[in-house]
């Protein structure tokens, strides 16, 4: 079994499956926070997916996407937290 095959047909599906599971939580909610956790986790998994894809296609450039993905996912979480508190304050 070549590494490429292993990555593309075993690891990547597992990661995508995980992403889908996370997405189930996103759909279920029930709170906005649950969705935010899901999105955050989704992005983190995305980092993994992109990393694996970079290895499988031997394109190191994709790893940079992983980096930015990680960076920005965090910012999204910060923003939503900001929102939750602001909204509470506003009530």
């Amino acid at each position, binding site marked *: 079994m070549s590494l490429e095959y292993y990555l*593309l*047909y075993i690891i*990547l*599906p597992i*990661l*995508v*499956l995980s*992403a*889908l599971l996370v*997405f189930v939580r*996103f*759909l279920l*909610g029930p709170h*906005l926070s649950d*969705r*935010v956790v*899901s*999105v955050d986790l*989704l*992005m983190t998994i*995305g980092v993994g*997916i*992109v990393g694996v*894809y970079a290895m499988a296609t031997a*394109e190191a*450039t*994709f790893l*940079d*996407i992983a980096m*930015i*993905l990680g960076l*920005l*996912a965090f*910012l*999204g979480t910060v*923003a*939503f937290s*900001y*929102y939750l508190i*602001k*909204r509470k304050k*506003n009530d």
Partner: protein
Amino acid sequence: MLSVLCACVIAALGLPVLVPRLPAAWRPSLAILPLGSFVYFLLTPISESQLLLTELPPVHLWLKLDGLSRLFALLITGIGTLVYAYSGYYLKNHEGQGRFYGFISLFMGAMLGLVLANDLYFLFICWELTSISSFFLIGLNQQEAKARSAALQALTVTGLGGLALLGGAVILQIHTGTTQIDALAARMPADFSVGITAALLLVWAAAFTKSAQFPFHFWLPGAMAAPTPISTYLHSATMVKAGVYLLFRLSAAFAAHPWWTPVLTTVGAVTMLYAALHALFRHDMKSILAYTTIAALGILVFFIGWASPLSMQAALLFVLVHALYKAALFLITGAVDHATHTRNVLRLHGLRKQLPALAVAGGLAALLNGGFPPFLGFIGKDLMYEALLHEHAVIGVPLLLVVNVALLYAGLQVGYRPFAGSAMPEGEVSKVSFWLWLPPLLLAVLGLLFGFLPQMPNALIAAAHVAVGSSGFAPLQLWHGFNEVLAWSLATLLAGVLFFRFWPMNRERLGWTEKVEMFSPAALFTWLASSLQLFARRYTSFFQHGYLRYYVMTVVAVLIGGISLLLFDDFAFKGSFEPLLELTFYELGTLAMLLAGLVFVVFTPSRLAAVAGLGVMGFAICLLFVFYSAPDLAITQFAIDTLTVILFVLVLYKLPRYIRVSSMAVVLRDGVVSLVFGGLIALLALQVIHQPLQRSVSTFYAAQSYVAAKGKNVVNVILVDFRGADTLVEITVLSIAALGVYGLLKLRLRAEERRNRA
């Protein structure tokens, strides 16, 4: 000729400034302008056409002075001279006197241009200018609502006619290949194609509106809201004759058309009868004169319609006669109004004591109008009967009799009745200046003089007769001998006088007309205008209803309609399902996530959850970009999505939650429309993707990116080099957006600024 026109234009521009600074006593001297022109036209021989300016095809400044032009030009300048002089005194305290002289000069110039033009488009230009200047003149007393609405009504009707004339001119040019009026007849196709007929109809529309033919006549009585000198000049002697002039002018080209005689005689007959009878029921002197003017115009159209040498001669002569007596009567009316502040014939009597000169003028004008021998009117009336008898117009002759009787009656009402009878109280009548009684007197005397010496106008009329393409001019003479014509003529006089004597005007008759007013064309016009308004309002608010979502839906519906029409015209499904097999689990998973995210965004009841859903979708799209070899896109998409989420978050926390939910039916309808639209886009995409691929541009980039542009990331090289101009614009968009955000959130107008929308 051009210098005359230029002088008029210069006067039009200069007089509004000059006149208010001119001592009132000097103002009648402005008549030097029309007087000089009058002399010019009197002395200038009939000329070949002069092509003066051709820089702007198809319009040529192309002038020609022939007999017809000269007849009209002399009327325009001659009566113009009197009106200028008269108005200098009549309007001396009017605040709009400067404007008056400006516009009336413009009007005179336009009218002269109109009668001198030998180019269809130049004629049209002058035509429009007469409409516009008359609009301003009718509205000279702009403080009065009546004047304003009359001006608008007049302009509406004549403007419509003007556009018809434009249309007709264009069609004529297309079909004859020329705009030269004197060449039209020669180029007219013998069989009168549909196009020519259309042009004829349009020309008629122009002529009928301008010359106040039934049912377009109603604006003319309204136009009497203008000060009397204006009514004199525009609505009796000159402007309204422009339509008649046009018919004269084009008769050479069109008279052979099978519709010419039936249409014109019918319209003319209806108009003259309708207006003449109407005149019997009026007691305002101006109103009476307005209706008789319409009737006279009807008579002219009627005779032009017959298109025989004799009828043309009669019509041409009547133009002159009518101008003389109608202008005189109008000026008298003005003078009477000026002296007594009323124009109601029921209240006026015995003015001959206080206004003897005017009384003389009135009497003479009434006789001239009635066609009593030896006035020129008598010759005119005889010629009419003669022409009709010559055509064996069995209905025409008695009809003309009725009309003539009514006109005689009306002339006596205005020219005789106010001066007859017991004198009015001394205080109610003020003296009138020499400037007010001399012009009408001059005109009436001229009518008498011409009657005695018909050879004076003879040359004028004969030349005009030639110009309209007729032959066999019969020299004018006062006495024709005892014949059938004389009998009809005398019958007319007798009937008219008896009628005047035994059926005097009284108040009750007024009521009769008001009862039928609702069926009049004026009422029809009002009804049409208001229906149009109503329709326009309904139509406009049907489309412009204010609901944004239906605007969007309209756009989408247009797209759906157009695309499906074209797509299914020659449709063959081009998508193949083969590539489905290559699909891997991770692609499918990503797509599934994108899809589910989409559904979630659409249906979630929470705004913030929708925003989070957008984040998920953006993420899935980003993954797709990764899988399909677009790293730059993936990064950018993701960065922008994050920023968008942040913006939403910063904005949304202040907003309340969604409240309203659309009904199921609405959701269903919207869903169906959107899905159809989306489906079409998908189909289109599949169709396009199965077309052969063209790659020369991207192949070039692939080869040159490093070699010539020194970069290895081809996308970025495109962005900063190959298509760098796009990027420069794109960042401009960003900075504008930022400036906009800054302004939108920081700028607060103060209350007084808010009131001052500036």
